[in-house]
């Protein structure tokens, strides 16, 4: 049993294909471990009985040519799953049962994967520590009372605790990469337009993107093969020629030009992150890459611009939650007061804050000063990357300015929480792909990640660079299973 959960996704698939393991054995092993790991609070909804049933069916007459043959997977509760409750971590959707399936989860099931259940996340993916979920905090397996990061915190925690062999999250400002960095796992945000947004509960539509979270880079490539497909149901889906990411993995990165942006050397960054970054540079040199100092001069404006653009889009996207057709409803003496009470009771504090910021920056008289201004800054940030990519193939930065913090440490000050995403947000604003890989640990033994940012639609390049770094880094989480009951 313990062997099963220690396998990577690709090793697990090999064992299924060789008939060394059955889908039922694997599914039951993950379920048994999840039952003993309830105090991490990773699951919002489990679908274990159905999972075992599906595994049984797969073992009887499954197609072993599938990419994910009979593999059980849990996914972030932001993906709509047909007939299974989808909450987005919010009270307002706490009883919502979709009548349709998100495109990316459909791709998983079409390749033979089996749904284990829905993983906790920050409410509407708004948060960096999984503390805004209506369904409670998620604890990270890396340490007691430590946050797993956010918003895909349940996904990161479940993956690191080996409750699922891989998972998918969504990343609007860092929500895949930051929790991956905090939990010693791999998180990939693909280029905007790679993975369909259809059926994902919308937060900020011009920034949202789904992506894999896995134990290693190979697994991320494998998952990307499954979920990155053109979709007519998403009007921003891009019909580009996708690679055969897993098969094309290569550790030859000789001559690759890697940019080091000086603006990411921020004040107050812990020494251990500075040296982690330096070690990454040394490693890339050893692997035959060429290191080039670059400048992304508008980096410091990315976060304030993000906190206009994302809330503005959120305030518009979340206007649909009015208590009429689905979700939580409160009472009111008339229609308007019913709306107001429903939204006041149904949304948590962080979501209300962002709706109000968004409403304000879009309101009459403030649009030009804030929203239009932020969109112009967004152009400058993207131009910075375009300019840099004239001389480099990819960019190396730390994933986060700190390691994981304790639950409750940053909840009183929204701005200090927002600063977590300082290195990840520019990527979303520019629509670029980026990956966070575990690269070391801090003095508390908490994982630290390095981020590689690539050119648009060049995920293969990004995967190859991180693949070759990963081999040398040889990172091990070595978790002590302290949470198992």
């Amino acid at each position, binding site marked *: 049993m313990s062997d099963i959960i220690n396998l990577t996704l690709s090793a697990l698939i090999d064992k299924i294909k060789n008939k060394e393991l059955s889908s039922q054995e694997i599914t039951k092993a993950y379920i048994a471990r999840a039952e003993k790991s309830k105090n991490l609070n990773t699951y919002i909804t489990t679908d274990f009985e159905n999972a075992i049933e599906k595994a049984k069916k797969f073992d009887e007459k499954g197609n072993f040519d599938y990419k994910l043959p009979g593999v059980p997977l849990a996914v972030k509760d932001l993906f709509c799953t047909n007939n299974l409750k989808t909450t987005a971590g919010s009270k307002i959707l706490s009883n919502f049962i979709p009548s349709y399936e998100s495109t990316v989860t459909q791709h998983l099931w079409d390749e033979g994967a089996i749904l284990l259940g829905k993983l906790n996340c920050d409410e509407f993916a708004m948060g960096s520590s999984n503390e805004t979920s209506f369904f409670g905090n998620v604890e990270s397996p890396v340490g007691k009372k430590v946050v797993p990061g956010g918003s895909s915190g349940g996904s990161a925690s479940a993956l690191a605790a080996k409750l699922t062999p891989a998972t998918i999250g969504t990343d609007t400002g860092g929500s895949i990469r930051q929790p991956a960095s905090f939990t010693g796992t791999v998180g990939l945000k693909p280029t905007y337009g790679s993975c369909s947004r259809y059926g994902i509960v919308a937060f900020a539509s011009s920034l949202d993107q789904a992506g894999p979270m896995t134990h290693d880079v190979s697994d991320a490539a494998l998952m990307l093969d499954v979920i990155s497909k053109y979709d007519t149901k998403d009007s921003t889906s891009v019909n580009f020629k996708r690679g055969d990411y897993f098969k094309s993995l290569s550790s030859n990165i000789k001559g690759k030009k890697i940019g080091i942006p000086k603006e990411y050397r921020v004040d107050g960054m812990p020494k251990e992150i500075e040296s982690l970054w330096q070690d990454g540079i040394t490693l890339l040199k050893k692997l035959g890459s060429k290191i080039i100092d670059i400048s992304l001069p508008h980096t410091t404006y990315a976060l*304030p*611009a993000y906190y206009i653009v994302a809330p503005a889009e959120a305030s518009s996207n979340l206007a649909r939650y009015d208590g009429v057709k689905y979700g939580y*409803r409160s009472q009111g003496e008339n229609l308007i007061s019913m709306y107001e009470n429903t939204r006041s009771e149904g*949304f948590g504090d962080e979501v209300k804050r962002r709706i109000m910021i968004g409403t*304000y920056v879009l309101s009459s008289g403030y649009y030009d000063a804030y929203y239009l201004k932020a969109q*112009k800054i967004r152009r400058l940030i993207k131009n910075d990357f375009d300019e840099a990519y004239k001389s480099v193939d990819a960019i190396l930065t730390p994933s986060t300015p700190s390691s994981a913090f304790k639950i409750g440490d940053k909840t009183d000050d*929204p701005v200090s929480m927002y600063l977590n995403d300082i290195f990840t947000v520019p990527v979303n604003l520019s*629509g670029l792909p980026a990956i966070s890989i575990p690269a070391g640990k801090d003095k508390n033994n908490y994982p630290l990640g390095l981020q590689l940012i690539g050119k648009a639609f060049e995920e293969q390049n990004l995967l190859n660079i991180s693949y070759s770094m990963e081999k040398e880094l040889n990172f091990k989480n070595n978790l002590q299973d302290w949470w198992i009951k």
Partner: protein
Amino acid sequence: MSIDLKTIKHIAKLSRISIDDKKAKELEKDLNSIFEFIEALNKVDTKKVDPLTSIAETSLKLRGDEVKTKNIREQILKNSPDENKDFFVVPKVVE
């Protein structure tokens, strides 16, 4: 520039979120600290910069208006917060 209590209540109204005075004061503090942080953008001269509305700067494609999902009325009405299972029901709006 700071956002006063009256403006907070006005934004709450526009956002269709009811807030009491205690909540309004909390939001006044939070939003002002967030906007203080946002004001940094004013340091950048953007007079000659075009706004970037979306990364996918392509024109939207048209597709046929085809029905792809049928007969899910019951399934959809099941999510209705009101007891009535034939319609979506809201508080009376016509006197």
